[in-house]
């Protein structure tokens, strides 16, 4: 085929595909925050919407069960929650929930979930909590998710509709790694990641999600794990700022206990470290090759640290909760008492 005709074929094929795929392109563009490219994506999407060209793609998506939800109706979810909370004692909600001590005969339901980082951590956590003999764990991670993209995965809705009805006493939750991307604000505007308006909207979503997790009888604790520091080359952003948001929002919510993962996966200067010594002094790789996700060793380390934290809130003496030195972090490692708004040099 002549080169001149090829360019016509390529341009035409790209244009047709671009029009049919406009909604998908806009979703990705919104997430990345492409500036002028985002404006083009919006314009193209509005044209295809008007002409109903997006029907083809949405039919395929519908057949595949993809990209169905587009909005996060936190207000509605909160309203439903509020109705259930009428019976709850306002006074009780001001205290850290006091949960009964689990025993092998009466194990405690514990749920662990979040994004892909929770995958390795959660699998370790599930295995280790199971081995204590006093927990009944459930793992519920969803890759590439967070609070930024409810169109991709609506966590608040999932928590209210699918998780809370199972009545876990403890939830261990971790987000953040995928959230350093642009968001659509309440007014439909794209909020550039880590900008002031973005921070405000993200804080609102975090606060709303935390509120959803409050139980009417104040008999549920959520351990909200901040994201660990990310290694070089990961292109993630804002882990430190998101940690600050989680921590500061947790301060006014006794049912949310913020867990600071940062010191457990960084060096003495709070800088990312791929390999670290466990309590036995042996240095092991804590992260996978991508410098984001935990290795199995890293997952085990965090699991024992979180169990230790739970042990400070609930009597776990009936279970086997003494960690092997080769799996647990050194006893000298502790969470920070206060999380700074940002960390210089953090990815």
């Amino acid at each position: 085929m002549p080169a001149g005709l090829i360019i016509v074929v390529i341009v035409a094929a790209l244009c047709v595909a671009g029009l049919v795929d406009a909604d998908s392109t806009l979703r990705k563009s919104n997430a990345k925050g492409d500036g002028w490219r985002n404006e083009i994506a919006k314009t193209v999407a509005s044209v295809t919407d008007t002409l109903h060209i997006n029907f083809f793609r949405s039919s395929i998506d519908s057949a595949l069960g993809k990209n169905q939800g587009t909005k996060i109706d936190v207000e509605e979810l909160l309203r439903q929650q509020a109705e259930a909370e009428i019976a709850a004692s306002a006074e009780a909600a001001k205290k850290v929930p006091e949960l009964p001590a689990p025993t092998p005969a009466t194990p405690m339901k514990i749920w662990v979930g979040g994004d892909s980082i929770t995958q390795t951590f959660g699998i370790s956590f599930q295995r280790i909590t199971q081995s204590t003999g006093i927990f009944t764990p459930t793992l519920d991670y969803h890759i590439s998710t967070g609070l930024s993209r409810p169109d991709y995965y609506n966590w608040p809705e999932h928590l209210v509709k699918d998780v809370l009805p199972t009545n876990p006493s403890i939830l261990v939750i971790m987000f953040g790694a995928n959230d350093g991307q642009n968001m659509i604000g309440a007014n439909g505007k794209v909020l550039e990641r880590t900008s002031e308006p973005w921070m405000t909207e993200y804080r609102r979503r975090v606060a709303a999600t935390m509120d959803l997790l409050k139980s009417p009888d104040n008999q549920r604790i959520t351990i909200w794990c901040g994201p660990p520091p990310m290694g070089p080359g990961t292109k993630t952003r804002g882990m430190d700022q998101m940690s600050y948001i989680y921590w500061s929002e947790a301060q006014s919510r006794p049912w949310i206990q913020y867990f600071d993962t940062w010191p457990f996966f960084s060096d003495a200067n709070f800088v990312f470290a791929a390999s670290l010594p466990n309590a036995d002094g042996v240095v092991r790789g804590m992260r996978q090759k991508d410098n984001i996700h935990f290795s199995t060793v890293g997952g085990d380390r965090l699991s024992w640290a979180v169990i230790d934290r739970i042990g400070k809130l609930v009597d776990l003496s009936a279970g086997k909760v003494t960690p092997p030195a080769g799996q647990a972090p050194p006893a000298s490692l502790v969470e920070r008492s206060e999380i700074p708004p940002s960390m210089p040099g953090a990815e």
Partner: protein
Amino acid sequence: MLFPTVDFAVFFLVVFTGSWLLRPHKIAWRWFILASSFVFYGWWDWNYLVLLSLSIGINWFLGLAVFRSLTPEGERTNISRWLVRIAVVVNLGILGYFKYFDFFISTITDKMRSIGISVDAPILNIILPIGISFFIFQAISYVIDIGRGQWRKPLTILDFAVYLSFFAHLVAGPIVRASEFAPQLDALPDPRYVRSAEAFMLIFRGMFKKVVISSFLAIQIVDPVFANPNAYGPLAVLLAIYAYAIQIYADFSGYTDIAIGVALLLGIRFPQNFDSPYKALSLQDFWSRWHMTLSRWLRDYLYIPLGGNRGSKAMTYRNLFLVMIIGGLWHGANWTFVVWGAIHGSYLVAERIVKEKWKGHELGLPPLLVKAMQWFLVFNVVCLAWVFFRATSVDEAFALLGRLFASSGSSAGVSLLLILVIVGSVASQFVPQRFPQKAEVWFATWAPALQIAALAGGLVLVDALGPEGIAPFIYFQF
């Protein structure tokens, strides 16, 4: 810039148009392709361009110096030999710094800690520039070929820069030789006869393999199982191992297909890099089908200089083993790659010994059954080696293999669709080459409007079946 993105589509439209318009003007065309390649590479990180420019300058200069130190008949001299050695050391030094420095330091400090000596190690957390292994290997081949008198005409610095940085092969190969690429710079392909049907089929096939097959397998089973094998039972682990074999093939050959297709649209033909490797009946056969341009690089610039099969049998075996170990290390600084190379090296040696011992002996079994058994053995050895290639550490690889014999564990991720994708992908290796070729010929007869519809439909389908984002190609990290 990743191939299956809008950014690349726009970039390529500009390059395609500019390239064919400027092709009759040889110098202008070269500058245009060079500038395009720099934009493509700099899109990741503009700092990378410094390293690429340095590599171009140093290797061009060394190539010229080597050429001038040869005798008028093109024979080697002591000076030329030393200059080639310097070129190899400089290139491997650059590669070593970026790729192996931290590995080396951490290995030493770990050893010292194990004997009670605490060392404050200067781990630099060096970021590996994308594709460095590929362009460094190409640069080495250029200087060595000149030193051997095989490539008698040093390129101009502009031609060399275009050769080394050409965007289609820059970040993940194929590893193209100057003797294959440079003549195409001077050729004037006829713009009336571009092999568009072949190129379009390659690009679509590559995108489908990468975006749909590779991503599906990674998300569905490979990543979860390799991240925590202890949670999974034997069936999930076995399928994850097979799935990874398909994933890495789909990912890497998918990239290569796109690269070859893109270059073909610009009138440049790259060498083939994959030839249905999973239908190999021996490991030697596998290596003549898998990453073929790396295999021949290792053969010509490592195996043969080490003595190849010219010495005793023991020396041949040693050379084979060493080449595979070094080939493993080329992929990265980790003991897992050493083990991967050792498995391949050991099996290649064992294969030769067995072949020599059994030469002329008949097993008395039907030939088809013998072939099936050979295939099964080779495929599973390759899959076994991939476990070490994929695992974060040797311990984790053994932990995963141990789960094959576990009595319990989750089967999460196992589904009929997964099994169909794995089986279908393996089966596709046995499809005769003439079928896709016939499809290309048939596609070429379609009217342009039909081709437009088919290409647009293909793009939409790939996007719909793929995940929300495009993961980087696995081989970028090498």
